């Protein structure tokens, strides 16, 4: 007995409205960041700075009726071309083929292939497992690479990964010390009953370290300071902005808890 025809396919019998609804699913794709965090569960790096090779991952996946191949057939090859995920597979004995990809919005400020990963290693949620040196994560690339993937990835790589990672680490350590110092000042001001002073410190922090490693921590302190000033509206705005930008940050829970504690609504916490 063969499968029923999918609603989205030409003979599926879906109305135009249903087709539009089901078609909107195509936009549902995880970010590289999300994938990186999952790998970090096992202390694995994303190896996003390079491409690597996984045997038959794609072939095997199609045979097993995976989501990728049939999805491409049903919705058009555009869906495959639109997103790809850069991955590394430490193939044990299995040999190598390519399972590769590029984030759909390559210029996104969120970690793209290679470029931003070493810089933000201190602030990313991969805090439980420090990233190993990037060069160690790259197995030898023996398989041919599609020209489509290579430009987008190599443009993000820049200098040799290990050298870049080292020099960035050196700079970032100094800057990190300064960031910590700024935030300490802000926190001390807040603890000392001077939320306005804390906010001034935080403004200075933002100006000085627009892409600092501790920007998320700074936002948490900002929300605390605004709440201390009883400026709930501003606190909620900052919180909303933060949660939209960093929904799965470890600090997201803290920010939500902060707002909840001060929620009046006639309910006791």
């Amino acid at each position, binding site marked *: 007995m063969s499968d029923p025809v999918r609603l989205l396919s030409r003979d599926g019998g879906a109305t135009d409205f249903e087709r539009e609804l089901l078609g*909107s*699913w195509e936009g549902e794709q995880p970010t590289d960041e*999300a994938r990186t965090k999952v790998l970090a569960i096992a202390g694995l790096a994303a190896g996003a700075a390079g491409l690597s090779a996984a045997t038959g991952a794609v072939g095997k996946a199609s045979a097993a009726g995976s*989501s990728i191949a049939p999805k491409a057939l049903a919705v058009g090859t555009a869906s495959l071309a639109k997103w790809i995920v850069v991955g590394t*597979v430490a193939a044990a004995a299995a040999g190598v083929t390519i399972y590769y990809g590029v984030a759909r919005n390559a210029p996104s400020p969120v970690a793209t292939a290679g470029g931003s990963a070493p810089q933000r290693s201190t602030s990313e949620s991969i805090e439980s497992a420090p990233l190993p040196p990037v060069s160690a994560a790259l197995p030898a690339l023996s398989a041919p690479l599609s020209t489509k993937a290579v430009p987008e990835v190599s443009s993000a790589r820049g200098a040799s990964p290990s050298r870049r990672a080292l020099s960035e680490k050196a700079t970032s350590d100094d800057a990190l010390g300064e960031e910590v110092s700024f935030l300490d000042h802000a926190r001390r001001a807040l603890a000392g009953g001077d939320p306005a002073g804390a906010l001034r410190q935080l403004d200075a922090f933002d100006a000085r370290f627009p892409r600092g490693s501790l920007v998320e921590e700074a936002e948490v302190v900002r929300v605390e300071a605004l709440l201390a000033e009883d400026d709930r509206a501003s606190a909620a705005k900052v919180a909303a902005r933060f949660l939209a930008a960093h929904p799965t940050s470890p600090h997201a829970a803290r920010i939500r808890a902060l707002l909840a504690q001060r929620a009046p609504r006639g309910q006791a916490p």
Partner: protein
Amino acid sequence: MMRTEDTSILASPRTPGAGAWLTYGYGVVPMMESSRHPAFAPTTDRPTAVLSGEASARFRRLVDSEFALVWRFLRGLGVAASGVDDAAQQVFWIAAQRLNDIVLGSERSFLLSTARGVASNARRAQARTREIGDDDVLAEQRDERANPEQAAAATQARRLLEGFLEELPEDARTVFVLFELEGMTMAAIAEALDLAPGTVASRLRRGREAFQAATKRFQAQAQATRRRP
């Protein structure tokens, strides 16, 4: 009762509520216990799973081949965009812990059944958050996305789709999502969910009927609204 912690649940579902049960993977865990389970700890508190070389390679292969499906499956089951990354982490954290128990070849099955439990948990927490959370924050979470991909996803059509999927009973929704949205074959779905083919077919049928009834109703209402003077 830990009311103040409830709104933190989207990122780290610590769930009060005695007597509720969470089924995941091959086990059933009482909710109160699961609330202390490391899988549900905030990301910084969750201990890194220590895997041997071979297990580590297996885990990486698992992530490479199944992560996107699991992530989208969680979305399809109604986990909010703001909580899905964390939910996906929970699923794979559990998988990392149970790697030795997962029979080779049944990884997808393990992941999807775990995902169902995690999704169910997350949805309960979302419902609680909607009750007592800050409406402004929630509204902005829904409407603002960090990157263009997610912004594209937050279209009207997508939101409507989410609404209609919400109307499906969970078992029908599961099959509907995997078949209609993820394009899996019936055979693959049967294997992944450990169901008889006939069961898959009947759940799909119910899912389609419910989906199409919902869209018809919506369109009829929209037309009626337009006709009103």
